[in-house]
């Protein structure tokens, strides 16, 4: 069997997983154990019943030995399947401690050919057993989680082009690192369309205000820009919690932003009023499930 690579130059996310996870996070805790007074046949039947490939032999919480499926095959082969367990169990065991990092277990699997290791706690009591299957399952689970996180961050960092004339950008609650990226991208596209500077600025003002609104007030959302030849439309839709009083929200100076947001220069209560003022069309609807703001800008021939 090939060694499992555990290198110190692995990607940090992998290292984090195998060094931070402890054996006790990965091991199987539901143990099927037998006493040494039973027979090898008992072990064989237990294995078949519980679908396990090794059975620890214990006396209360102490481990005395282990009978693996290889031991059973040998017993059948050599005709001593009805002998007492204590006569044939493997007594020379390598055990690991539940507080050790997972990397420790992996290096033991690399070093020895055993299929599993019994796990003891500090009091030397048997608390679990670890196999490569346990490790694989846990690693996959954590890698899935890490990859999902990575994918989400790529999604929010890099705007994705959906259709030819449409662009969508994710916003994330309180993430001021990427706030403004949607508007900057929209502005770049408008510049490429050779539109009038004043026109571009009007669109940029509205999209920036709506983008910041999502970052500051919503649970996150999407800024969508539609570039038609005669019209630019910005649609800001978020995942809630909604605006309780739309009239107030559209009043200049009214704000529900907290002190931290205000200290950054946001939350002056001018976001929606500013957007409405610069736009040719302005629609807003809000429920606790989300707010949708749609602003439109007509491209007049003279402006091109």
């Amino acid at each position, binding site marked *: 069997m090939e060694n499992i690579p555990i290198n110190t130059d692995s990607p940090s996310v992998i290292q984090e997983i195998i060094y931070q996870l402890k054996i006790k996070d990965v091991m199987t805790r539901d143990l099927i154990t037998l006493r040494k007074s039973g027979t090898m046949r008992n072990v064989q039947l237990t294995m078949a019943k519980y679908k396990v490939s090794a059975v620890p032999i214990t006396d209360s919480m102490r481990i005395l030995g282990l009978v693996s499926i290889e031991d059973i095959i040998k017993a059948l082969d050599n005709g001593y399947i009805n002998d007492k367990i204590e006569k044939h169990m493997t007594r020379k065991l390598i055990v690991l401690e539940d507080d050790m990092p997972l990397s420790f277990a992996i290096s033991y699997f690399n070093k020895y050919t055993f299929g599993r290791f019994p796990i003891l706690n500090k009091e030397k009591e048997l608390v679990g057993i670890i196999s490569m299957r346990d490790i694989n399952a846990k690693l996959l689970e954590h890698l899935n989680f890490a990859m999902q996180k990575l994918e989400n961050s790529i999604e929010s960092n890099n705007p994705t082009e959906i259709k030819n004339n449409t662009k969508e950008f994710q916003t994330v609650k309180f993430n*001021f690192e990427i*706030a*403004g*990226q949607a*508007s*900057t991208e929209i*502005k770049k596209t408008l510049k490429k369309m050779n539109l009038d*500077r004043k026109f571009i*600025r009007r669109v*940029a*003002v509205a999209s*920036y*205000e709506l983008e*910041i609104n999502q970052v500051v007030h919503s649970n996150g959302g999407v800024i969508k820009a539609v570039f038609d030849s005669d019209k630019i439309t910005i649609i800001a839709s978020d995942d809630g919690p909604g605006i309780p009083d739309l009239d107030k929200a559209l009043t200049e100076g009214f704000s529900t932003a907290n002190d931290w947001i205000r200290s*950054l*220069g*946001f939350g*002056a*209560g*001018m*976001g929606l009023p*500013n957007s409405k*003022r*610069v736009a040719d069309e302005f629609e807003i609807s809000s429920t606790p499930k989300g707010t949708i703001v749609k602003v439109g800008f007509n491209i007049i021939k003279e402006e091109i």
Partner: protein
Amino acid sequence: MKASDLETDLGYKPAYTNYPDNDITSGFTSDLLSDVMGNAREESVLITIQAHKNTVACCSLAGISAIIICSGRKIPEDMIDAAKEEDIALFTTKDNQFITSYKVYGLL
């Protein structure tokens, strides 16, 4: 006036060298980014204490040429990077917004 006049005439410290010597035709003093966004004229110099990179994003979208960070507030590295990226000149001064506005107005 030019952005470099802020350095040569007023002694304001540029946050990075080789900044773009943008034209400045107006000024705007505010710490509210929405206010800047909605009301500052293009080719303005923004006089503010908001020393973070969102100020640069806002100024870029509003077409602002230069930013002066007042009262000796420290400019974070990522704000300097953003300003470079967006071709916005960036200065610091110990003067507060009132004094800075008075001095800059005199140059316009």
